[in-house]
């Protein structure tokens, strides 16, 4: 509990919550869209093997996770160091040993974890039907995966609506439409 309280304090003091919320939505959206692209793309290519889709999906998740973590960590770390130094100049004091110093070291790690985990998790969730493809046909797995990806997009939009205290349904439909557009474009390729 003490450890969790400490994390909560650091999140509050470093004010990393709003930025990690942005990272979460932006990257989970990326993850779901990438997964949707891989699944529908494999369907368009014809005769997809579950193993290939899982491998491509996991590879993309790992790449998004790693790049998300490293990207967010290095950029946040640079920003936080600059902010801390500026505050230290105003205070005429070294703040490294204070809760502010510790919180500003914690913020990049937290942002990195959120930025890395959100796309990877969203992508893996969309691939779940392929892990269970021994239970049903590949066509059904593709259909289920597309539905899951669209539901994830809808929920992300709803979450956006919730944090901006606006219409959750409308925001959900907006992101859902983006997923539908991607699916339609890829399906058009199949019909050509």
């Amino acid at each position, binding site marked *: 509990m003490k450890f969790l309280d400490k994390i909560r304090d650091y999140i*509050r*003091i470093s*004010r990393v919550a709003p930025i990690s919320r942005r990272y979460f939505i932006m990257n989970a959206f990326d993850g779901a869209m990438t997964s949707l692209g891989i699944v529908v793309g494999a369907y368009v290519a014809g005769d997809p093997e579950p193993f290939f889709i899982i491998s491509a999906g996991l590879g993309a998740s790992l790449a998004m996770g790693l790049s998300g973590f490293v990207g967010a960590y290095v950029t946040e770390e640079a920003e936080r160091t600059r902010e801390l130094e*500026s*505050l230290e100049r*105003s*205070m*005429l*004091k070294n*703040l490294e*040993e*204070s*809760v*502010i*110093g510790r919180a500003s070291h914690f913020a990049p790690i937290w942002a990195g974890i959120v930025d890395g985990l959100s796309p990877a998790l969203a992508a893996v969730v969309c691939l779940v039907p392929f892990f269970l493809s021994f239970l049903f046909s590949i066509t059904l797995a593709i259909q289920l995966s597309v539905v899951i990806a669209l539901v994830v997009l809808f929920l992300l939009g709803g979450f956006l609506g919730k944090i901006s205290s606006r219409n959750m349904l409308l925001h959900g439909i907006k992101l859902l439409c983006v997923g539908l557009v991607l699916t339609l474009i890829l399906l058009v390729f199949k019909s050509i």
Partner: protein
Amino acid sequence: MIKRLVLDVLKPHNPGIVELSKELSELDGVEGVNIVTYEIDQKVENVKIILGGNSINFEEVKKKLENLGAVIHSVDEVAAGTRIVEEVRTPQDRSARL
């Protein structure tokens, strides 16, 4: 035994005075805390902290404030002993003003 301590403190905006007061009130020997902000700059603010209690440990207060990123500018009033002695006006104060 310190019973009252008045401090002039420079602190960053975050953690705020609500959190600061909670942290200070949890110290052993501290029974009450009052914090007043009297100057706000772009990145820092000056606050007056009044601590009341039965046995305030100044070093603990200083350590807690430093841990929260604040700095004590000055110790403006201390009341110690078994009874709190209030500041009184004396003829010297009047003559000093003249």
